[in-house]
């Protein structure tokens, strides 16, 4: 009679975060671990909760834009675009054509810069040291252009309800054309270095798989959702600004694993650069601010406007009571919703995979906690 070993089985509770190199900021994952296998994940967030939504209720519409710069501090212009569109919807104001083109060009450049940062930090999560240097070199070029146009590298406060703050300088179009060439070379370099590297493929393919329906039910959006094959992109489904006038492609993944989510972002970089070229070809002249009255006091009402942030569907639900301050601003943060799917993806994976899966969701803690 063989006697079973009588020691009971206790899973180790490993605390990853809130100060941990792989958690992209202040985010804590409590992994219950059996050896190297992850049995369960309970994320803890809220370390960066600044009460942005409540603060927006005591600031005028012009000041709330500076708040939105700091929600997702890696794609600032896309956040500003989301709030400014909600503001324009509620004030029934239409930004002139040239302002819409400037906004879309800068927002797409911001998307490329954000994806470049993702590629760099995702490589570091998996141990590759070099892609981050190449990606940040390109990101630096894009930020120089932002500084040239808006005056600030990251916290721009450039868009206004009804247009943009100031017109682009005269050498804007040649500078952006040159920039597109350089950034495209930079993205190709990182793509060649990383995308089909054997160790990278071994670490990401088939890891953190989530299928379409569960992803949609978890509220995933953006490249994380498109990795599972669901073609949901706000620029295509609910077109805004001048996206209907552009030809572009939305890449879709098939297996919904980490590699798909990563590679879709690389492809989106190329698509965004093509889009910017088309915008530059159609760049019209004209005013950059909606003419007419000083825009301060919107009519009372509720409005929901959302746009395609590099991380997913960034929505703004704006309730106004007719005063010059919004009554209630609710932000639909894509990173917050993508994190709901983290637990279902990480169960049963290794610890090293938990880092890879979290990295592939590309979350930004400022947006998760607001």
């Amino acid at each position, binding site marked *: 009679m063989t006697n079973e070993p009588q020691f009971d089985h206790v899973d*180790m509770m490993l605390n990853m975060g809130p100060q941990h190199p792989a958690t992209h900021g202040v985010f804590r994952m409590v992994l219950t671990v059996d050896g190297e296998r992850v049995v369960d994940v309970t994320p803890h967030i809220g370390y960066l909760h600044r009460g942005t939504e409540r603060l927006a209720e005591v600031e005028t519409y012009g000041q709330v834009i500076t708040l939105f710069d700091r929600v997702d501090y890696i794609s600032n212009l896309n956040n500003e675009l989301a709030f400014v569109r909600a503001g324009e919807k509620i004030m029934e104001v239409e930004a002139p054509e040239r302002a819409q083109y400037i906004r879309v060009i800068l927002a797409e450049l911001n998307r490329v810069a954000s994806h470049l940062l993702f590629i760099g930090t995702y490589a570091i999560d998996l141990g590759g040291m070099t892609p981050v240097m190449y990606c940040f070199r390109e990101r630096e070029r894009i930020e120089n252009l932002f500084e040239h146009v808006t005056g600030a590298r990251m916290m721009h406060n450039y868009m206004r309800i009804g247009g943009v703050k100031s017109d682009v300088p*005269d050498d804007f179009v040649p500078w952006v054309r040159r920039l597109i060439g350089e950034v495209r070379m930079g993205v190709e370099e990182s793509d060649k270095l990383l995308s089909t590297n054997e160790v990278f493929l071994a670490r990401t393919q088939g890891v953190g798989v989530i299928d379409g329906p569960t992803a949609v039910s978890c509220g995933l959006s953006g490249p994380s959702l498109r990795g599972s094959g669901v073609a949901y992109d706000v620029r295509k489904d609910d077109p805004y600004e001048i996206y*209907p006038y552009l030809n572009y*492609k939305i890449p879709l993944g*098939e297996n919904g694993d980490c590699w798909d989510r990563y590679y879709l972002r690389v492809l989106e970089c190329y698509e965004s650069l093509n889009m910017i070229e088309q915008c530059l070809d159609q*760049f019209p002249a004209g005013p950059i601010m909606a003419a007419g009255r000083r825009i301060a006091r919107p009519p009372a009402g509720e409005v929901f406007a959302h746009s395609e942030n590099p991380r997913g569907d960034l929505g703004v639900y704006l309730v106004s009571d007719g005063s010059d301050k919004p009554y209630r601003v609710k932000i639909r943060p894509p990173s917050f919703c993508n994190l709901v799917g983290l637990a279902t993806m990480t169960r049963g994976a290794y610890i090293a995979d938990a880092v890879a899966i979290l990295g592939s969701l590309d979350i930004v803690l400022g947006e998760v906690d607001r």
Partner: protein
Amino acid sequence: MNVTLSDAIKLTMQLFALLNVAAFGAISLVWLERRFLGRLQGRPGPNRVGPLGLLQPIADAIKLMSKEDVAPGTSQRLLFYAAPILVFVPSFVVWLTFPLARDVVVRNLDMGLFFFVAISVLSIVGLVLAGWSSNSKYAILGGFRAAAQLVSYEIPIITMILVIGMLSDSLDFVKVVDAQATVPFIAVVPLAFVIFLIAGLAEVGRTPFDIYFAESEVVGGPFVEYSGAHWAIFFLAEYVNTFVVGILGALLFLGGWRWPFGADLPQIASVALLMGKAYFIVLIIFWIRATYPRMRIDQLMAMAWKWLIPLSFVLFLVAAFQLKFEWPWWVLTILSLGVLVVPVVVQSRKQRNPALALAVRYSANAVIVHAKPRPAAVIVDDVVATSAVEGTSA
């Protein structure tokens, strides 16, 4: 055996010189790695402390020495401080038998290779002890990973050293180098060099295999609780081990101080030649570190047990047959080149081509959004509220 005073003094002087060579080698590696990686990544690397940053390792050493040496309260203090010594000592003792030139060696044992293998295994004990004694979850995880990795990559290295011993029918370093006077063993059996390099990377814990102190997962592994001087000892031991892999590769595979010139060079030139080859191998190690991400622990184990160990046994058998039946030496070369091609083909068919096809398919059948015709660009002519606008278009 009576040890005269002069012998004792001579031995201590030799040991002191040996310690300096190893320590200087390690410190030069620290500087070289940071500069070389900087170069590969388009940044200068340390250039503030001293000309070209040459004094940077010394500055690091001073900083680490002056840092407060903190030990976690719940750790077993004795074992906690014993672990760095256990890791540090073997990596220096190994240098006893390394010949830098024909007679520039402390004790040229005729079992030199065997001595190296026996001593280098000890560092595993130190790593596991460090992991366990610092009583932190990450350290324990790192310690177990280190144990698993080092033990399973010990076997391929030992088999390769045996193959080299067989080829030069002796375990004495000097005889091994003499055997390579005309043809270096890297040409004779390239597969052995590849397996040695991969297993050496894993022994030292360099990038494709640095899972036991992976920053992003286990945050420093067994060294996580160490700080100040003790951490410096681990750090130094790791670089000395890298230098050992470099020197060993040079001695066993690149023909030490003999190969291109056949005849014996003057002592200084042969030491320089050996060092050049060692630094060449070390540069390859740093180059791999700049390019490859990190493997996962199960893939790492699978690679050791499914690929490296069977291949090294096959090579060992073929080397034995070649020795027994006096086949010409290039039989081994053909075998190695043939075997080297197999994993490349298998990997590219099983993993690389599907990935490339996937990449092409994603960009091919992406959802295409067609542009709607833009309404005629109506230029609103009323003056703008905020800033003067002149309609300068591109």
